[in-house]
């Protein structure tokens, strides 16, 4: 038997959230946690959670599994289970709409802030903007992010300042466009992040890296942004000195 404890909250009937315990026969095959949730939903249809692609591509079913953020659809129950018990809670730090469904407005607002699209002043070429294989390789480990919010919602700095600290997910995306050779707004992008909160609230806690279900490293991207911000400042100071 597996004991599954699920965080329950229905704004229409509950004043406070509570944990509800479910018991279920351990499946013979090592199924994914999302499938287990689907089986439980057949027993109790009121359990709410987001899901879509069921293969770790859409990033809908991010949740807190036994204390660690992850995607239910690519987490086998054998790795999630601890002492025959699985605790499922919503992503930390974001307002809960119902059960495991959180309000991601703050998360998307930060993503919006970093202008997540290619900006280039020159006239678009007839076919496409070309990039050398070396320049393209710089985007590896950045473009794969699916915005599931597992990283940002595991970050204590983001819990403190969700409105001012951009958070690991959006910063990874910010660096994805800063590092892109086809983007011409690099300086503006850096300038946009140069205040004390946007980037510098990151203290290298590394929760983002340990939570990322796609094995990406937002901390490294943040480190690169910090270095670029510093060398950028140095250049501005140097050029001021000349003039």
């Amino acid at each position, binding site marked *: 038997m597996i004991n599954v404890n699920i965080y329950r909250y229905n704004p229409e009937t509950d004043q406070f*959230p509570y944990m509800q315990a479910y018991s279920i026969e351990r499946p013979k095959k090592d199924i994914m946690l999302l499938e287990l949730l689907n089986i439980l939903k057949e027993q109790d249809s009121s359990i709410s959670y987001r899901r879509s692609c069921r293969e770790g591509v859409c990033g809908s079913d991010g949740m807190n599994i036994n204390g*660690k953020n992850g995607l239910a659809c690519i987490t086998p129950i054998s790795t999630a289970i601890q002492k025959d018990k699985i605790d499922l809670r919503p992503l930390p730090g974001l307002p*809960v709409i119902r059960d495991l469904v959180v309000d991601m407005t703050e998360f998307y607002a930060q993503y919006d802030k970093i202008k997540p699209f290619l900006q280039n002043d020159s006239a678009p070429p007839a076919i496409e903007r070309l990039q050398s294989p070396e320049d393209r390789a710089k985007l590896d480990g950045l473009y794969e992010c699916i915005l599931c919010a597992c990283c940002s919602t595991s970050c204590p700095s983001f819990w403190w300042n969700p409105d001012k600290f951009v958070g690991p997910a959006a910063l990874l995306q910010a660096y994805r466009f800063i590092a892109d050779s086809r983007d011409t707004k690099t300086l503006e992008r850096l300038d946009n992040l140069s205040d004390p909160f946007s980037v510098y609230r990151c203290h290298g806690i590394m929760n983002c*890296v340990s939570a990322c279900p796609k094995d990406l490293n937002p901390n490294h991207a943040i*480190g690169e942004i910090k270095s670029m911000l510093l060398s950028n400042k140095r250049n501005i100071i140097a050029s001021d000195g000349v003039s």
Partner: protein
Amino acid sequence: MSIKPVFINLLKIQLPLAAFLSITHRVTGVLIFFLVLPTSVYFLSLLLSSESSYMNFLDLYMNNFILRTFVLFLALIFTYHVFTGARHMLLDFHLISETLSATKTSSIITLILFLINGVIQAWVIL
């Protein structure tokens, strides 16, 4: 519309060792500002005000175990902050690679160095 609940129970969320170091670095930073610096300055003012107060304080310090333990406590807070801060700066300068294993190893090394240092401090002060 009622206020939506937020799940943020630190006892139920796994935090890696690096998170522990970062949070305690913060806490010791606050303690240095509000406890270590004011008391150190106060002790220094006691030592420097006159020759007799210097001798009195020295006498008290030598004979009072609780006072020495307190001074050790202040020194430990300060060195803990310095050690975790040094690790943080090494990270900022990219001298520790930003991988999970490297941050974990560096956290363990920082704690071991702090413990060795703490034993030496305790041996000197007590």
